[in-house]
């Protein structure tokens, strides 16, 4: 195995593209090193992107959005007061990953690119409408975060391509987001089911726009348009929330595994959708 600490995106993408064997990007390494130790992957080349200028920075854009470099750790993101205030659901989702030690290393771009169906930050990012900046041998492009994962452990990235930043849109006023997950333990666990909700209120106080994303109930995150539709035009009254829960349960396509059954996951994702919608609404109204 060769190790390259890249000094530029161009150097990193060129090395990744030129490697005939298995090549991996090293951000926080909290998934990659575990996979290497278990023999899941034996890379011929590892490219560390942490020393590339800008990769470890969070930039508050002029339009109110945020550019989160691919090597920004959970700990660093958690210390960014403006981002936490604008996107509390995204910040809380990312902070749920692993321990303090894992937070010192883990990255949002890595969580997205690891393409686990149970990555905590992904449903929150999808609900937020976040995009990923991708740079590769053919140049740069942007896609919605939900487009990155192709299925468990697989991405749509082409050879040599790197996600260099996660881009959060401007939050705007009278808007809020929330992320909830179910785990048997309160810490150091992997979600059985999860939901991210982001919504914006209209001038009449009713929900004018909403996105509901479901985690760990399919091979990749499910963007549930029916649950969003159940919220839009309402004030998230009990009837609307019941419809949100039903829509989320209906859209879920989970598997049975050691963490939960199909029936449990479908029921749980509905409950979480209802609760997360309530929190997002309270945040949008400024009462949370």
């Amino acid at each position: 195995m060769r190790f390259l600490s890249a000094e530029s995106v161009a150097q990193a993408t060129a090395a990744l593209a030129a490697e005939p064997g298995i090549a991996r990007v090293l951000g926080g390494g909290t998934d990659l090193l575990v996979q290497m130790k278990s023999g899941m992957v034996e890379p011929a080349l590892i490219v560390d992107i942490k020393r590339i200028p800008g990769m470890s920075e969070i930039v508050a854009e002029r339009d109110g959005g945020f550019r989160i470099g691919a090597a920004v750790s959970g700990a660093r993101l958690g210390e960014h007061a403006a981002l936490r205030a604008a996107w509390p659901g995204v910040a809380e989702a990312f902070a749920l990953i692993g321990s303090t030690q894992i937070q010192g290393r883990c990255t949002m771009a890595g969580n997205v690119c690891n393409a686990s169906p149970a990555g905590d930050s992904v449903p929150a990012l999808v609900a937020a409408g976040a995009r990923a900046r991708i740079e590769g041998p053919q140049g740069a492009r942007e896609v919605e975060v939900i487009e990155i994962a192709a299925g468990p452990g697989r991405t749509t990235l082409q050879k040599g391509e790197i996600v260099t930043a996660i881009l959060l849109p401007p939050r705007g006023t009278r808007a809020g987001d929330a992320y909830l997950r179910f785990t048997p333990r309160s810490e150091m666990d992997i979600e059985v089911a999860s939901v991210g909700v982001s919504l914006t209120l209209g001038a009449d106080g009713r929900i004018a726009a909403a996105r509901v994303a479901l985690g760990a109930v399919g091979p990749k995150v499910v963007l549930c348009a029916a649950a969003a539709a159940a919220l839009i035009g309402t004030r998230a009254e009990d009837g609307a929330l019941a419809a949100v829960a039903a829509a989320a349960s209906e859209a879920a396509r989970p598997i049975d595994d050691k963490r939960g059954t199909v029936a449990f996951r479908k029921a749980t994702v509905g409950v979480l959708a209802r609760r997360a919608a309530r929190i997002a609404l309270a945040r949008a109204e400024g009462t949370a």
Partner: protein
Amino acid sequence: MTALHITTRINGDPAEFLCDPDETLLDALRGRLGLTGSKEGCGTGDCGACTVSLDGRIVCACLVLAAEAEGREVGTIEGMATGEVLHPLQRAFIDHAALQCGICTPGILVAARDLLARNPDPTDEEVRFWLAGNLCRCTGYDKIIRAVQAAAAEMRGN
């Protein structure tokens, strides 16, 4: 594999070593530099026995490549005492019997020191959440929490 020559700082002192490209920082600390205070428990970032600081953040050394330490600041348990004088946390762990077998202790001390540097007066719940990634199978944790709080009080001058 071609060995890499890494120059870094460990506990404030310059250090250099040769390592394989896929060697972890934990293996380099223990095997190349003789710093065996950091322990390998799980090797997958779950137990925290290998906790060290890297540029001021605590991390699991088992999930860091040794090559990543180039030009960085590494802090290990070996840098905690000042000569023969134990750190208040180390004394509190002895005074409160906050250890039995001791495998988890170096990692917990490094993690707890980082907590108290950021939050000198944590609640018990904050200590428990901060140390959630440090597993101990001997103490049941209560004595660890008491020891951290006793050291925190002493360090605050109470």
